[in-house]
């Protein structure tokens, strides 16, 4: 019971509310607010912040160098999302149809690596892709030219690493939407004369569309904000927007610009999140 007869909240309500609320206000809401304020401030000569309001940090995004990094990040995130969808949809479809004894094992195998250390998993790829790494050795052994992916094609390597990192985010919502579809619907479609392809196009696909959208958002958001993958693969020289932000708080010491960049990224992420909750409902988390 939330309230007593006089409409006051009960004691246990406040016991539950206050500590967590204080925590998220102190360490999430206030820092985010400070970052917003900082994004409109100016950079001091030796780093630091001078509280003269300006829109210059946002305007700086128009500079070709920064604009290019932002657009490139969006491009890579989009490619990652599409690749995850192409790989993930058939897998989700397969998982939803496979016999249930196998299904649970396969789902577990999909979920477990995704909870394990992301840094280490990315490092493992570096081990394979680097110059004269395992991949190059395999190619050499087959008398093919070594691709030297990490050095020659950082962008492609990052894309590969992101697909690897976030594929499970795509498969799980897809699986959820495909799995709850009544198989009788497909039988009904066949019964009404639809070919397998037509019944997929007119029944299965439209019904799984929420899963497609949810999965796409779930892959797009972390890909756009990636930090570890480009940092590790590019050795600090290849920048996505996350790395650019990190740099402002490290080497460049331009906190206001870093804050502005963060807010641009955050806005994009929030737009995605709003889309996701529209699709799934807020209580579904």
């Amino acid at each position, binding site marked *: 019971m939330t309230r007593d007869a006089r409409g006051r909240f009960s004691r246990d309500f406040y016991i539950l509310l206050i500590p967590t609320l204080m925590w998220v206000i102190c360490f999430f809401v206030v820092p985010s607010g400070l970052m917003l304020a900082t994004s409109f401030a100016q950079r001091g000569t030796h780093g630091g912040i001078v509280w003269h309001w300006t829109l210059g940090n946002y305007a700086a995004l128009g500079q070709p160098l920064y604009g290019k990094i932002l657009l490139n990040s969006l491009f890579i995130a989009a490619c990652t999302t599409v690749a995850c969808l192409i790989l993930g949809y058939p897998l989700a479809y*397969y998982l939803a149809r496979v016999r249930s004894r196998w299904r649970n094992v396969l789902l577990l195998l999909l979920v477990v690596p995704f909870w394990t250390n992301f840094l280490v998993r990315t490092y493992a790829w570096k081990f394979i892709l680097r110059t004269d790494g395992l991949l190059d050795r395999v190619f050499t052994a087959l008398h093919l030219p070594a691709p030297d992916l990490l050095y020659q094609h950082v962008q492609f390597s990052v894309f590969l690493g992101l697909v690897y990192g976030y594929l499970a985010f795509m498969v799980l919502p897809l699986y959820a939407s495909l799995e709850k579809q009544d198989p009788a619907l497909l039988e009904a479609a066949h019964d009404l004369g639809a070919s397998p392809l037509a019944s997929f196009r007119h029944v299965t696909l439209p019904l799984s569309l929420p899963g497609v959208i949810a999965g796409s958002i779930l892959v797009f958001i972390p890909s756009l904000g990636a930090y570890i993958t480009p940092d590790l693969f590019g*050795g600090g020289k290849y920048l996505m927007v996350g790395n650019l932000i990190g740099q402002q708080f490290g080497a460049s010491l331009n906190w206001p610009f870093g804050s502005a960049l963060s807010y641009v990224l955050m806005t994009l992420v929030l737009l995605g999140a709003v889309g996701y909750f529209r699709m799934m409902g807020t209580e579904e988390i």
Partner: protein
Amino acid sequence: MPTRSSALRSVFRINALFIYFFLYAPILVLLIFSFNDSRYTVSWQGFSLRWYGALFQNSILWERCLNSLIIGLVATLIATVLGTSAALLLERHRFPGRGAYMAAVYLPIIMPDIILAISLSLFYGLVHLPRGFATIIIGHVVLTLPFVTIVVRARLRGFDRQLEEAAADLGANEWATFRRVTLPLIAPGILGGALLAFTLSLDDFVLTFFTKGVGVDTLPVLIYSMQRKFGVTPEVNAISSLLLLNSTLFVLLSLRLQKHR
């Protein structure tokens, strides 16, 4: 058309096989080469435990390990208490501002780590909070709190409220009802959430990297700086393998607890 549909089925199967290979090959490669008896890590020189032996004698590594554990334990404790109360609040109470509260608790999940990290870093800088264990722990709590909340809420949803009424009916006051009925029944969810939080804390790199002070490093930060400094080395392979094994174990345990009825 049996031939066409069976051909389609094998396409699905091959795709699945390829994806699972894609997911596990790098991990297995890492694991295998951590046993390689060679400094030049790509060619196989025979099975050896020498890199694991070297790890055991590496005192810096032990210290980082201890740091990771302390941070993980404290952060998990706080996140579990706060996350459980958030879960209870969201499942049991309707109040004005509930949506905003939920957003504040859940948003860190979808925020890119880097944004969370630098907003905290900025905050610490502006309020002059000296960096050390506390600053890292705070970050880890913000990061893991929503995961605990989600797991405990799922457990609460499967909870029969009539059991609490039965306890009240038998003379238990609110606290006794919570301690003797509610808590034992949602305990697997709380424990599952806590394990998840602990795993995430042990694995975190980005938040730690931006909120740590000089001298307080964790295991992932050590791995990062080792690979930065020395590139790919068998020692790094060995620590990484251990860390991977560890989080796999914890995640399996957590999933098992979440399923427990």
